[in-house]
């Protein structure tokens, strides 16, 4: 299992605007970390850096397995939009990310996997024929089907209605408990973060850094409506009323 060590000393945008400065944390194998911060805090930028989509920064992003340094581990990324290939069917979209040899012994299992995420009988449909919620399910399954070591999620359930987002968060926790990848889950909603994560990193506004590292000790699976989630949400905001604006000033 892979330990992720992030140490971004300085990341500036093309317009010389300083996005991230001295942001560092370590994620343990199998840990579910939520990253919460105000809009424009460079959360997506951070995920892009970790995914290797953006390499323009000062600092380091390292992966270790035990003592050994590791090159980039198997990584999945669930974006704000489902980002499925519209010209490929659901099945072709999933097969696209699988390695050739994995594809062979999964031919039968693919139908089962679709059924498990509530997509039975959708294998031959195109993404355009699915609802927004179902497209997210396909994207979620695509993220898990390669059995990643690291799963990056960038506000993946944004713009869904509340019940659908709830269902998907429960599904996410089920899938995560099966293979236990390390998850970095970016969101601007503290409630959502508390309902899925083991640990929450709060970011400041630009240039962003970690201002609070909060462990969440609640049993999985949870939903946003759970009383324990609500209570924790209130107590955190009671202690730090400006937290979601990116400032930590004890009340």
């Amino acid at each position, binding site marked *: 299992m892979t330990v992720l060590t992030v140490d971004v000393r300085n990341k500036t945008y093309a317009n010389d605007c300083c996005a991230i400065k001295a942001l560092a944390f370590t994620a343990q194998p199998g840990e579910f970390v939520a990253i919460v911060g105000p809009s424009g805090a460079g959360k997506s930028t951070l995920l892009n850096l970790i995914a290797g989509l953006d390499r323009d920064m000062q600092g380091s992003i390292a992966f270790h397995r035990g003592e050994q340094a590791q090159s980039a581990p198997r990584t999945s990324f669930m974006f704000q939009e489902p*980002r499925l290939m519209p010209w*490929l069917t659901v099945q072709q979209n999933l097969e696209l990310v699988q390695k050739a040899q994995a594809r062979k012994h999964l031919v039968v299992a693919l139908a089962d996997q679709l059924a498990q995420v509530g997509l039975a009988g959708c294998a031959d449909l195109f993404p355009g024929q699915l609802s927004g919620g179902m497209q997210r399910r396909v994207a979620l399954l695509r993220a898990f089907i390669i059995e990643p070591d690291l799963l990056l999620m960038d506000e993946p359930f944004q713009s869904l209605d509340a019940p659908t987002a709830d269902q998907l968060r429960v599904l996410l926790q089920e899938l995560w408990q099966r293979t236990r990848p390390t998850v970095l889950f970016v969101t601007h909603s503290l409630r959502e973060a508390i309902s899925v994560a083991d640990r929450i990193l709060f970011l400041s506004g630009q240039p962003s850094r970690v201002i609070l590292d909060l462990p969440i000790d609640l049993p999985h699976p949870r939903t946003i409506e759970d009383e324990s989630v609500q209570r924790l949400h209130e107590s955190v905001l009671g202690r730090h009323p400006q937290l979601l604006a990116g400032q930590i000033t004890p009340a």
Partner: protein
Amino acid sequence: MQTVLKFGSNLAQGRWARVLPVVLLLCAWQLLSLVLQSKTLPAPSAVLSTLWQELSDGELLFHLGMTLTRVAISFAAAMLIGVALGILMGSSNTWDRLLDALLILALNIPALVTIILCYIWFGLTETAAVIAVTVNKIPMVAISLREGARAVDKKLLQVAQVYRLSRRDTFFKVYLPQLMPYLFGSARNGLSIIWKIVLVVELLGRSNGVGFQIGNYFHFFDITGILAYSLAFALVVFCFEAVLLRPLENHLNRWRT
């Protein structure tokens, strides 16, 4: 009145929608030729009978075959090179800047100049003919595909990068499908332009093909023959569109529902 309109819209939706305008055009042509009674405007019936006669003595098939071979070779070559060039220029700013002036120049050189130069440099050969046509068409394909490559969705390419797709899968399953509308666009007008240029090439320096035949008929002022050969090629294009291009396009566009 309403029933007539409804009849009209039913016609427009059915299979007849494609055929009806052509039939109307033929009727108008026939009428006009009856009224004018001029040697320079033969009736469609006369053209059809010439077409049939040329077809049955094999003359037309031979020349049409020669022309179609030239069209096919230059079309394939121009599409391949043009697509590669367009993708290169659309995805790399450096190449775009390096080649942009040349592309504009190539696009605006008259077809006739390229043809004459090719014949002078390479002789009155088959190779020279095909090169002349290909060189004329490449810049048009490149221009259109450059637009396509510029409009490619970077977000989907990020998906390909994160999930570490092979170069092959990235190209054929993520990149190329986004260029399909541009490919079909340049294939359609490519075909029409190439066939026109091929005729000029044949007229100037070949001893067979539809262009050569039309040149002959021109010398004898045989309008019926000219129209018969044009009609033959128009029929081939219709078949190509109906049998190959449209079904292929519909198949590739299944997902757009």
